[in-house]
């Protein structure tokens, strides 16, 4: 069994009312390159800062080599950080920046000289010792920041979006160099980024985070090929995410066709989400191989491949990537390998809300009075199930019972699946054909259709 250098257990942190980390548990193997990946605001930087000791967790422990480091201040932790905006000391030259940590530790001068030279060589900045850090370019400053951290020979190197401020070409070069440095040094790297491609390139293990929770932990290949939920599938790479139904083991239906797949154990006739990567839908000219037909809607050259949108004969839109272009308007025959279909449990089938009956026409939910006909006594505590299709979004926030903001949008081939955050921070999910943008302010209303109401007392009995 491999040794865990860092073990994080049930870590939580709130800033004011906002929970930024919610029960995070995770371990890091010695010597591994692990990446915390997620959109901005997902809590990844907070987690990194807690490991570094700049922030204290509200709950949970961080073990390093089996010992709780809660009481250890940052300057005594055997780890070093590379900051997003470098955080070099402007009043010191390159040499003194790098020697900063060594001098504090009263390292002998000849030893400092030797080590500074060695790391400067490692980051390919050997002739820059006497330069003022402010005269260096962004990429050079980043190299010095890395050198300043690794010269102290930390057990763990924390990197907070170190390449985010560099241009694309420089970023690609630095990725390769970082990977090479990791191999040479044998230090554990904990890397934070929102760039999924960077994470896939660099990491041994990726931790995908969203809204303060870990979504999935796995190798880049696992995360890409077998995302556990729609968020991961959407965030990592391009994907077609579709509503489906598991007919039985190894047989799934979506886009109104049935396909063989390799997934088992979902049960029979169960609603699921299906992910098919755009490069996994193949064109064929052999009618025997063809699983469904479609018409090419658009075709864009992307450098290595062409990106095409097709309309299936059953009315769904799919994205396909292929090395060969097909003319817009042409009828094509398509098939998908059973291996390439990723079936995922649905996270939820409807919105389940708790509320109180106000009168026979009104139920109070999420702090708003929704007109829902019911046959319960006023004051009854109820659980209300609202189907995705029964949530209505309105342009004017005043027209809704509640107001909120469009938080996350997922295209599912023939409709959009939206996550809306109410002003109080509750989430609602809905299906719609209307086009909204992330961040749109909306009014929220329920259609009194398909809504199920249960009394809480009934449930208890």
């Amino acid at each position, binding site marked *: 069994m491999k040794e865990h250098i860092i073990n994080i257990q049930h870590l939580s942190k709130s800033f004011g009312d906002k929970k930024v980390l919610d029960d995070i548990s995770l371990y890091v193997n010695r010597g591994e390159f692990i990446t915390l990946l997620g959109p901005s605001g997902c809590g990844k930087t907070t987690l990194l800062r807690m490991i*570094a*000791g*700049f922030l204290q967790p509200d709950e949970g422990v961080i073990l390093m080599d089996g010992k709780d480091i809660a009481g250890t*201040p*940052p*300057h*005594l932790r055997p*780890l*070093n*950080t590379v*900051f*997003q*905006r*470098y*955080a*070099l*000391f*402007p*009043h010191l030259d390159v040499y003194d920046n790098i020697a*900063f*940590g060594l001098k*504090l*530790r009263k390292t002998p001068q000849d030893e400092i000289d030797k080590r500074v030279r060695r790391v400067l060589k490692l980051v390919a900045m050997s002739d820059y010792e006497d330069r003022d850090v*402010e005269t260096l370019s962004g990429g050079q400053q980043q190299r010095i920041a890395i050198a*300043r*951290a690794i010269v*102290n020979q930390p057990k763990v190197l924390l990197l907070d979006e170190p390449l985010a401020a560099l241009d694309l070409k420089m970023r690609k070069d630095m990725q390769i160099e970082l990977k090479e440095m990791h191999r040479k040094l044998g230090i554990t790297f904990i890397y934070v980024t929102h760039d999924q491609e960077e994470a896939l390139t660099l990491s041994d293990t990726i931790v995908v985070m969203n809204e303060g929770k870990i979504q999935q932990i796995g190798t880049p290949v696992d995360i890409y090929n077998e995302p556990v939920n729609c968020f991961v599938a959407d965030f990592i790479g391009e994907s077609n995410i579709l509503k489906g139904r598991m007919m039985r083991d190894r047989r799934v239906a979506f886009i109104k066709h049935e396909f063989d797949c390799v997934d088992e154990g979902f049960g029979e006739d169960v609603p699921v989400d299906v992910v098919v990567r755009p490069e996994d839908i193949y064109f064929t000219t052999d009618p025997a191989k063809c699983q469904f037909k479609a018409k090419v809607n658009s075709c864009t050259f992307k450098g290595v491949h062409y990106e095409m949108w097709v309309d299936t004969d059953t009315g769904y839109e799919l994205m396909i990537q292929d090395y060969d272009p097909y003319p817009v308007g042409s009828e094509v025959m398509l098939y998908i390998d059973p291996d390439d279909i990723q079936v995922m449990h649905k996270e939820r089938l409807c919105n389940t809300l708790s509320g109180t009956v106000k009168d026979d026409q009104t139920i109070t939910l999420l702090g708003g009075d929704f007109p829902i006909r019911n046959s319960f006594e006023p004051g009854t505590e109820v659980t209300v199930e609202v189907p995705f299709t029964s949530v209505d979004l309105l342009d004017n926030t005043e027209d809704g019972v509640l107001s909120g903001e469009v938080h996350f949008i997922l295209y599912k081939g023939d409709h959009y699946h939206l996550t809306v955050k109410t002003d109080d921070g509750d989430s609602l999910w809905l299906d719609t054909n209307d086009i909204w943008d992330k961040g749109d302010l909306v009014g929220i209303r329920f259609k009194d259709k398909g809504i199920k109401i249960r009394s809480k007392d009934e449930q208890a009995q």
Partner: protein
Amino acid sequence: MKRFLAKTYIWILLILLYAPLVFIAVFSFTESRVLGSWEGFSTHLYGNLLTGNMQGGAPLLAAVRNTLLIALAAALVSTLLGTIAAIGIHNLHGRKKQALTLLNNIPMINPDIITGVSLFLLFVFLHFSQGYLTVILAHITFCTPYVVLSVLPRLREMNPDIYVAALDLGATPGQALRKVLVPELKPGMISGFILAFTMSLDDFAVTFFTRGTIGLDTLSTYIYTDARKGGLTPELRPLMTLIFLVILVLLIVINLRQERLNNKNNKR
């Protein structure tokens, strides 16, 4: 024509502003006892001033010494206090930060005479015997906000991560403060120090009310008393000229520093 008018206007303005100063400076080079009558060029008054060979020479030199000592002490302490306060204010958020910034600004707009009288009443109330200490305390009080105001922009421009970066590299909070934060804030602290020093130098009202009855005089109170006793001692003319030159040099230094800092930031 328009340009000519604009130029004339600015020259008239400048002449009006600087005439009194030039007047004093010119008449510091003549020996006449009465201001305004020219009795030929002489540097005699400067000589008297430097050798102390003059009427009331000893108290005048004592006043100069007091002024400098008080200004130095007040500027040093308020630089320290102001820097700490600025760091504190910078780390606050939202309404608290706004409130404290406002509270910091009010004493600066507050008329000196009110600051002076209220400090006088406070010292009386606390049974402080008035003298050097109370004057220095009073000067610290009105100098500190200026230091806060000159350190805050440095903090705002600073990369907030450099302090934690120092901790991360093994510095204790104290070392991080000394080795990283203070060197970073130094330009602001020096500007604040110079500002506090000049504010203290030219203060009259606050000093007048807090110096007590032990006969403590700074330059401004000395000149005030001297002028009331009947006529200005002639040697004060070269003295005022010199003070003006010192202030002028300090102001130029502050402005040059500011310009250099701005250039440096623009380059970044």
